[in-house]
């Protein structure tokens, strides 16, 4: 089967060497002890450069190396589960750096926060796949030849093979006739067959035999499985570069998303992404509903359903409404839109001392716990005598602990309260350095309320309005909306990945459960006119059912010869 020389089904190199003292090494192996012997590969140490290359290639494509690389791959994947990864958990990485300031930079040098794209992890799986290809390609060629070849000659001594039995044929049946019926039987059972006949050694009678082989699909399945894995790797590696993923927060009843680059809050394009591939469509969040458990004592407040009701419009078409749920994304314009998060966006208005509106917006707050205590930042750069920054806490259902701290007892907005700590000074926006809308750098700012200032935080319920400190103006909490955090993805190759994965599974099933086996039936006419029938089999690869199968064939053949109907069993 052109397997690596250290494959279990290849001829034993030690035995081979003993056989061929001339120095020809382990053959490419044909799987069975009866197959044609090894090839002309030289394994003597007088190797030139090409010889060394050959030797290296042989080592790389050997079973032992494949096994070693597999185990190394498993081991190398472990650190990525112990240390947060940038791709899956960027906030976790930031936190890790804050918690382990001395260890984290060292780990970062080892690419421990990007394990699965790291040089060392990549080199392991690339070597593994090179080894795999180097192993599979010769096997595929060999298998292609085997598919067109006839089963091998019947071995001289069947008694040395598995499941050997000898039976006496009923009187009056010749060797050729007996073998013909065995041939038909085996053919019907899915074997590829070839009949050999030979005159008896001492002219005593004829010898006929049928050589049969089945289960070629086992090797086909094996090759399909490995080829499909290569397919997955290539599709993910190359095809993934054409996609993109982006995030956008939509406030209910608020702004419209248009599928253009500037409309995303964040955007991660693949290597080969082109902006032209964005299909134009628009999307607006009409309403977001969240349903929470109100009864069960252990699960009070647990979410039961999230539903983002959106209106979408593709170019040249009428607007359409759709629901986006957690397990049911919206497929539109070549993209998939997923509902991955939600929260509250309090609508806040700031007026200057003259009553002129200088800021009004629904500001998305980030949830901090299961009851949606949320934190958000309001920045008012213009219109007031000083730049104003506020760090706000939003409690959907506010309660006060015994220490006086606020917390939320339920994720729905039953008793919403907004508190704000006000800072004035330099927001740091003038330098042109991009800053996150979710964080406030207070280095160049002065805290005016809350904390150690001695001035109580601003505390508002919907509809409330309050004066800002130092006569800066007024602030009002008008209402609160829900927002939905949507992920918008485009991956043109994921269908291919699924196809390859399904092929791999199918190939695996075939290669593990279809046995490859050879069966021989030999009829020898004796001098006294009686006919001896011999049955034997040979497993090619794992075949736990070989012996029952040979016995079954012998049994059915005997019944055929005696004229009885063979029982319907699967050989």
């Amino acid at each position: 089967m052109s397997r690596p020389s250290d494959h279990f089904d290849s001829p034993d190199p030690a035995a081979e060497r003993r056989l061929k003292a001339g120095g020809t090494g382990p053959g490419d192996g044909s799987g069975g002890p009866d197959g044609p012997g090894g090839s002309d590969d030289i394994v003597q140490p007088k190797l030139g450069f090409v010889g060394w290359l050959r030797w290296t290639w042989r080592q790389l494509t050997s079973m032992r190396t494949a096994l070693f690389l597999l185990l190394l791959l498993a081991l190398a994947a472990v650190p990525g589960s112990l240390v947060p990864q940038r791709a899956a958990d960027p906030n976790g990485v930031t936190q890790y750096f804050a918690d382990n300031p001395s260890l984290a930079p060292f780990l970062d040098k080892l690419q421990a926060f990007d394990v699965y794209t790291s040089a060392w992890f990549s080199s392991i799986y690339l070597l593994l796949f090179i080894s795999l290809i180097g192993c599979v390609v010769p096997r595929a060629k060999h298998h292609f030849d085997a598919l067109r070849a006839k089963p091998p000659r019947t071995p001289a001594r069947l008694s040395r093979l598995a499941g050997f039995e000898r039976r006496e044929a009923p009187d009056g049946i010749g060797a050729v006739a007996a073998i013909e019926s065995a041939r038909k039987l085996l053919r019907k059972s899915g074997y590829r067959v070839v009949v050999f006949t030979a005159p008896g050694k001492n002219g005593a009678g004829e010898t006929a035999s049928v050589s049969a082989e089945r289960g070629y699909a086992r090797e086909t399945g094996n090759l399909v499985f490995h080829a499909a894995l290569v397919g997955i790797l290539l599709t993910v590696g190359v095809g993934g570069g054409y996609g993109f993923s982006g995030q956008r927060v939509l406030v209910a009843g608020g702004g419209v998303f248009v599928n253009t680059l500037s409309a995303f809050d964040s955007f991660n394009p693949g290597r080969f992404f082109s902006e032209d591939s964005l299909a134009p469509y628009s999307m607006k969040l009409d309403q977001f509903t969240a349903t929470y458990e109100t009864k069960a004592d252990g699960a009070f407040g647990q979410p039961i359903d999230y539903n983002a009701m959106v209106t979408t419009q593709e170019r040249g078409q009428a607007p359409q409404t759709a629901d986006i749920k957690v397990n049911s994304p919206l497929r539109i314009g070549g993209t998939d839109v997923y509902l991955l998060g939600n929260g509250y966006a309090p609508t806040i208005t700031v007026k200057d001392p003259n009553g002129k509106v200088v800021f009004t917006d629904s500001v998305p707050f980030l949830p901090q716990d299961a009851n949606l205590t949320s934190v958000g930042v309001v920045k008012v750069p213009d219109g007031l005598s000083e730049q104003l920054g506020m760090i706000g806490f939003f409690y959907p259902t506010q309660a006060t602990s015994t220490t006086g701290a606020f917390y939320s007892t339920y994720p729905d907005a039953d008793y919403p309260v907004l508190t704000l700590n006000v800072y004035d000074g330099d927001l740091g926006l003038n330098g042109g350095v991009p800053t996150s809308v979710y964080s406030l750098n207070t280095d160049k700012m002065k805290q005016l309320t809350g904390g150690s200032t001695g001035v109580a935080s601003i505390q508002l319920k919907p509809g409330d309005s309050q004066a800002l400190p130092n006569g800066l103006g007024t602030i009002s909490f008008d209402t609160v909306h829900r927002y939905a955090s949507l992920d918008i993805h485009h991956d043109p190759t994921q269908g291919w990945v699924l196809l390859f994965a399904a092929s791999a599974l199918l190939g695996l099933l075939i290669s593990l459960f279809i046995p490859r086996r050879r069966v021989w039936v030999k009829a020898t006419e004796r001098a006294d006119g009686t006919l001896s029938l011999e049955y034997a089999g040979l497993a090619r690869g794992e075949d736990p059912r070989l012996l029952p199968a040979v016995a079954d064939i012998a049994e059915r053949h005997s019944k055929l010869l005696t004229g009885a109907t063979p029982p319907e069993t699967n050989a």
Partner: protein
Amino acid sequence: MTLDEYSIFFLYAAMAVYAFAFIAFALDLARRSAQVSAGNTVAVDGSVTTAPTVRESVAAGSGASSAVLNASSATLVAERPAGGSVDGSAKSGKNGANVANGAVAADGSVTRRSLSLRLGVSFTVIGFLLELTADVLRGIAANRVPWANMYEFSMTGTVLIVAVFLVVITRVDLRFLGTFITGLVLILLGISTVNYYVVIAPLPPALQSAWLVIHVFVASLGTAFFALGFALSGIQLLQYRRETLTLGAEFLKLKFLASLPDSTRLENLAYRVNIVGFVFWTFTLIAGAVWAERAWGRYWGWDTKEVWTFIIWVIYAGYIHARATRGWRGSRSAWLAIIGFGAVLFNFGVVNVFFHGLHSYSGL
């Protein structure tokens, strides 16, 4: 009482019965050891032959059972190479038992079946039915499949481990694994009822998918096969040490090993069980990716649970390769199967509970 309380009641009842099964299976092993020490022959099915003239066929391990097969299927079988009969004894347990029913063989030897082994199986079947009832009641009470948090994973997973064991022993006599299976199930159930119990809660939106039914169930089924493979590989290692020790050497006092199949047969059995587990695990991986695409917007993101599911898949892929690599068959590949199941337990017991990631459905 609520349905969930009935479910808990049945679960405790099942645990009690499993405990009896464990004791019965352990007694069987003790009995095997004692009989082996006394110089009697014990077959894989636990039947003891006390005869002054021990037949050639009734040696230790599979040689014994295949010889019984030859004897019972009678006639026609004239020659059979000794090496080949190892694989053929797959069905022989049953035949062996039938012969054993006959009690007195032609040469006057007396064969007795193992009462404790039969009691162990009976208790296991009763325990299984009780636990299945508990599991189904939990599902009815929650109005969904009973595998959505650690407590329910444990319950359904152990039901499947026992179910796979009970199904497999109708085909191959692996009843000698009863101690391991019932012991493992008891430990898992003990941990989960004490530490993981949560009241019935509705499914969070991320779990509201048909894939919950498929993905988690197949993963548990794969785990059940891996558990059986783990046990077989473990015994294979012990058996191999016993076989390679020189005659007369004392070994661990695990004399019952003499009554179990030889290490080659154990290895073949472990392989057959593990590849079934591997196929289920491959499916779990693919189904999980399909579900992740729907729920999280990407089919693969190296989430901690994804990482460990991948690691387990690679270890068992390595195991299957090891079985086909010269020099890695036998004990080395057995160690890989054992490490693989260790990773499965780690993935279930440690990653689910302690690791941070998207698969935070332990309910704890």
